């Protein structure tokens, strides 16, 4: 069908195009406690297409759509004609599609049933008690195959596993019961890690039952030791170095610019990498046909290079860029143990921790925190953390030890000094 669509595109007179065939096979299992709520299978195929149109004044039009496998010949022709017409309406500065040949990696033989079995088996091995237990979980295992072609002759096929498990745990003390939510993404199932992570959540749940209200700490150091820290590394540092964000004026970063002034803490080094073991997006060629290469985006707190879509990268004169999926942040100067000296609030559960990539605002309600103060540890809940990345980066410190969260490797703990803490008392 891909060939047929390509012929129809050429019949329109369209000479610049990108076409993909995406096939997804998924097995899903939904559990209430450890009983099966529902089992599901999805078998999907789609054909996303983007057509381009050179326009007067050195401009380029582009429009996209999706051909369904059930579309008739007539429907395909009409859809493509509509897309091609719409491409004439959208006038952007011209850019070129990828034209460097890429070699498809060997197609992986995957078995969604076997991966699903690993998840089911691992969850059955989680150590629970009468008062700390798994409430429910949902297992999603996908085999994704992407076949890409463009009008410059770039063509490749990749196949990769992409899994996700959502786990809700409960902890109970008398009549009082609380829950914690976790979403773990990965390529396949690492059963030991999954058990460890769920059991860690169970321990947090137990602590959540014996909290006291967070005091009004005003300005206080905050330590992040969970995947909430990803919000900082993914939605601030990595996204600020994205060419689309820069071109669209949501970021003013450029090579040579320091990510903050007067940095006295750890200086971040962030790399985009072509492959990351057991990432849910582990493929070496991006969705636009560019090879994903290892690339240092930020070195010692200074922007070194940029990444992003072909269009915006070309606007900014960035060659060899790609839509990277996997990133690694290098560890800092101190160990986790050293960073844990002194007074700080370690927040391990937020309602929803957010870092605004444009303005850099930091905000989140505290669901569970450990207040380390004057040599004691109090377990706290309520209130909120807020601040600004511009204020936090100069003194930000992070551990030498690192931890992988799906597509990111980041320092195991991150310390942000003097954030604003609204108490719950």
């Amino acid at each position, binding site marked *: 069908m891909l060939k047929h669509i390509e012929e129809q595109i050429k019949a329109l007179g369209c000479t610049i195009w990108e076409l993909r065939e995406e096939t997804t096979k998924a097995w899903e299992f939904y559990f209430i406690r450890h009983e099966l709520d529902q089992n599901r*299978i999805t*078998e999907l195929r789609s054909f996303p297409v983007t057509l381009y149109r050179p326009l007067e004044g050195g401009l380029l039009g582009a429009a996209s759509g999706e051909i369904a496998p059930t579309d008739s010949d007539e429907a395909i022709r009409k859809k493509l004609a509509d897309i091609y017409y*719409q491409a004439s309406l959208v006038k952007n500065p011209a850019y070129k599609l990828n034209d460097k040949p890429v070699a498809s990696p060997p197609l992986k033989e995957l078995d969604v049933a076997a991966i699903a079995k690993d998840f089911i088996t691992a969850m059955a091995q989680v150590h629970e008690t009468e008062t700390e237990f798994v409430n429910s979980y949902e297992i999603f295992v996908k085999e994704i195959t992407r076949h890409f072609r463009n009008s410059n002759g770039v063509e490749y096929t990749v196949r990769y596993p992409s899994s996700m498990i959502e786990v809700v745990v409960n902890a109970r003390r008398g009549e009082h019961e609380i829950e914690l939510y976790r979403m773990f993404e990965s390529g396949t199932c690492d059963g030991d890690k999954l058990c460890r992570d769920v059991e860690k959540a169970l321990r947090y749940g137990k602590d959540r039952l014996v909290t006291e209200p967070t005091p009004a700490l005003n300005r206080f150091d905050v330590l992040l030791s969970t995947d909430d820290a990803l919000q900082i590394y993914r939605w601030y540092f990595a996204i600020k170095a994205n060419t689309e964000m820069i071109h669209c004026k949501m970021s003013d970063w450029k090579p040579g610019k320091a990510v903050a002034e007067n940095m006295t803490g750890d200086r971040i080094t962030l790399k985009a990498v072509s492959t990351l073991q057991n990432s849910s997006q582990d493929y070496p060629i991006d969705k636009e046909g560019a090879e994903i290469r290892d690339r240092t985006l930020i070195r010692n707190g200074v922007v070194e290079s940029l990444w992003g879509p072909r269009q915006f990268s070309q606007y900014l004169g960035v060659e060899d860029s790609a839509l990277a999926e996997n990133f690694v942040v290098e560890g800092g100067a101190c160990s986790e143990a050293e960073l844990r000296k002194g007074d700080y609030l370690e927040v391990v559960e937020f*309602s929803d921790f957010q870092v605004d990539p*444009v*303005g850099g605002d930091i905000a989140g*309600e505290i669901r569970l925190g450990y207040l380390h103060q004057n040599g004691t540890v109090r377990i706290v809940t309520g209130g909120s953390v807020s601040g600004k990345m511009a204020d936090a980066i100069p003194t930000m410190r992070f551990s030498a030890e690192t931890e992988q969260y799906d597509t990111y490797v980041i320092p195991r703990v991150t310390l942000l000094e003097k954030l604003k803490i609204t108490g719950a008392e």
Partner: protein
Amino acid sequence: MKAPFSPYLDALAPKMKKLVELLGKSFAYVSVLSTDSVGFSVYVSQTDKGISGQNMTTERGNVVRVWRDGQYSEYAFNEITGSVEALAEEIVCQLERQFALLKLTGTKTYDTPILPDEPLELFEEKETGELPEQADMKGLVERFTALSDRGMETIPHALDCTLSGSSTHISKMFVTKNRFLRQSYVYAEGSCWAIASNDEDETKEAYQGVSGCGGPEILDGLQDVLEKMPKLMQEMLSSEEIEPGEYEIITDPEISGLIAHEAFGHGVEMDMFVKHRALGADYLGKRVGSELCTMHEGALCDNSVTAYVFDDEGVLAGDVTEIDRGILKTGICDALAALRLGVQPTGNGKRENFAHKVYTRMTNTIFDSGESTLEEMIASVKFGYLLEGEQSGMEDPKHWGIQCIICRGYEIKDGALTGKVVAPVVMTGYVPDLLGSISMASVDRGVMGNGGCGKGYKEWVKVAAGGPYLKMKARLG
């Protein structure tokens, strides 16, 4: 005009009826939901323009649901390459592979009764202005371009001004042995989003949207939205940080809707009752808000982006009074959760698309109006804030915590707005305390349906929420 039902689905109907019949030999209950929803999305800014035939609700595909021995299973697909007989055989074969794995792993079933299958035929095409597939895309891009250009002229210190819009013509068909339901309707949503930089080189954002049940003509409302943007941005640029503490607050209809959605929208999704994940189950018949707190939920409550006729399980849309003058009356329920709880479903079984599982999901979640005017409400505040503009929200149904990140707050002192603006504002609290503190509600109300709602951090669906201006007390930071 009527939004015409998909000819593709009409042509598909005999095959799906046959599929139900064939699978009926292996399973005691079989349903098929088939979808064919077409639409577009467009954005225009100073730095980029884009146009697509896809948005968050465009889809075409089918999902089969079957029941056997207390177990529900589903098979979603979007391709039929051979005969219906071959497809039925393939579905049975694939599901049997899963059953074999479940047997191998010793997995027990959460035993659930069989769904009823009362006979019903329904065909409804809702009214719309235009159809997205017939929209004048050239005119739309030109209008958006002109609005973006005007935004750059009028919005102070603007770095960019993005106009975006989308619309979907939804067609869905639900088939069982005894039911044959078809519906079609159109919704649209649009927004204006601007960024600007102040003297301290800080980047600030301002956002406003329009939405409703109807076609691309709804996007005409962006003209009025743009006129409000210069003032909004000026306020954001001059905004200060809020001093943390508890304040008297007045929420605009958008924030009232956000509270409704987060506080007792997610909190009474009854699939959460099945899992004992919601405190609301223990509070039915009990007070959870003040006398001024009455809240409705249902696709029939408002002609919004989610005003469907039947849900994704073939249950007719409803209008449920969740909270009546402060007393929690009931929740909302999908069909399987209803079976498990022994209650009636409320028409709230929704899927992100045909390939996703059904969950209990919100539609329109709305506080009832009161009798005060906004002016009276402001005059009653000694020291507090008028809160406007939703950024995000998060619920905790098990613990009734709530977090709302709000774009801005207008300071009120001694019954009058002072002109001082704070931004952003993080509102946190305990839901019954928050709703229990509602002391005034305005006569007018608004309902907003931009963006999407997730269950946890996935399963994105269209919802709408709103209400009147509400006065209450909350902790802000």
